[in-house]
């Protein structure tokens, strides 16, 4: 089976909820081409398709969640096979903004970033602005990725923007923002001081590369 047909089959398995069959297919490819190549040529393009379907609201939360879990399973398998995806990029500091507790999107972002070789420092839910910036400075992270689901919590992102600016770190630490509210109201990215957003969790490696200036390298 060629790579295009295999990607289509993998997508079908994910949408049908056949996690086990999806993993059998991925493991079969990894046995022939190694995990790193499987991630790059089979998993990542399939996840891109999942991201597009998510944007178009054509897949359920369960299917999106399962895609994330499969990516996580693959990372684990790669690690067990001593084909650890090297953390050559980052780090990125991730967290949900203060008062926000919707962790699913953030967790999926972390999985997809790790799949793409980013080192991720995940601070969890309800993270104060000062903590985001303190941790970014401590670990010399150039990107803070902050998640918020609703308008009322998204507005707290402005305090992170102000904290970055107050410490003279404007332009040195980029602020990536994400969550359902930004998909519906993209104008909020600029209004709340964000430097960029991604259309879905699987699109975040592209965003981080763009914010890091890696896109054209």
């Amino acid at each position: 089976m060629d790579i295009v047909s295999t990607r289509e089959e993998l997508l079908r398995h994910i949408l049908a909820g056949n996690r086990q069959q999806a993993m059998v297919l991925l493991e079969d490819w990894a046995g022939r081409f190694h995990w790193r190549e499987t991630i790059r040529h089979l998993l990542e393009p399939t996840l891109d398709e999942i991201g597009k379907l998510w944007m178009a609201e054509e897949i359920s939360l369960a299917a999106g969640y399962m895609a994330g879990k499969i990516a996580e399973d693959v990372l684990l398998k790669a690690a067990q096979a001593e084909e650890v995806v090297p953390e050559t990029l980052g780090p990125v500091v991730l967290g949900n903004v203060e008062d926000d507790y919707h962790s699913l999107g953030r967790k999926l972002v972390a999985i997809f970033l790790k799949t793409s070789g980013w080192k991720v420092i995940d601070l969890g839910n309800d993270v104060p602005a000062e903590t985001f910036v303190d941790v970014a400075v401590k670990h010399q992270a150039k990107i803070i990725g902050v998640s918020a689901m609703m308008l009322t919590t998204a507005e707290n992102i402005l305090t992170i923007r102000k904290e970055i600016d107050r410490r003279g770190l404007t332009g040195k630490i980029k602020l990536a923002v994400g969550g359902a509210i930004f998909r519906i109201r993209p104008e909020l990215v600029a209004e709340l001081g964000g430097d960029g957003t991604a259309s879905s969790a699987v699109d975040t490696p592209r965003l981080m590369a763009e914010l890091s200036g890696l896109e054209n390298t």
Partner: protein
Amino acid sequence: MKPLTVICCSVLRREIEELLAKDYPEAELVFLDSMLHMHPEKMREAIDKEIADRPDRSCLLVYGDCHAHMRETAEGPHCAKVNGVNCGHLLLGTEEYRTCRNSKTFLFLPEWTERWHEVFEKELGFTDRDLAREFMKENQRKLLYLDTGLIPVPQDTLNNIAEFFDMPIGVLPVTLGQLRQAVKDAINRMAQGDTDES
């Protein structure tokens, strides 16, 4: 203030009927399907239509921050919204709601409890029990039913939910005091706004 219409999510139907019958018996009550939460833009359209159909009434929205433009909707002329980010917050108040969220507690309100199959299987797509369990356990530590005292605790349904997610579900009796105050505050704001305009 113009005659009052309360536009409310059906998740709080019993509770709002109970409160309004006592406090504002003359108010018109409009309930919109709580499943609109799965389609926020449709929810926005439905709420906006109800408001547009009532130019001569003051409209109180009993909703949380449930769609992306809720604030603009609530800031329309002769409109107000109760303060709260979601229905759990409206029932529990800020302090207790925050405690629940910090302890990763997933809240079941009575109406969604009755419709839990519809919510989790049909709307969210969790037809696979193992995946549903993994999802819930990864994101939550506890399940908690909020007993507002208006219907008997549906113990059989709670047992089914507990079995489905393989997690125990607790029951927390809650009064309608927080919701009553939120409604009262919003109506007062609306009345004050009308006074300021005149």
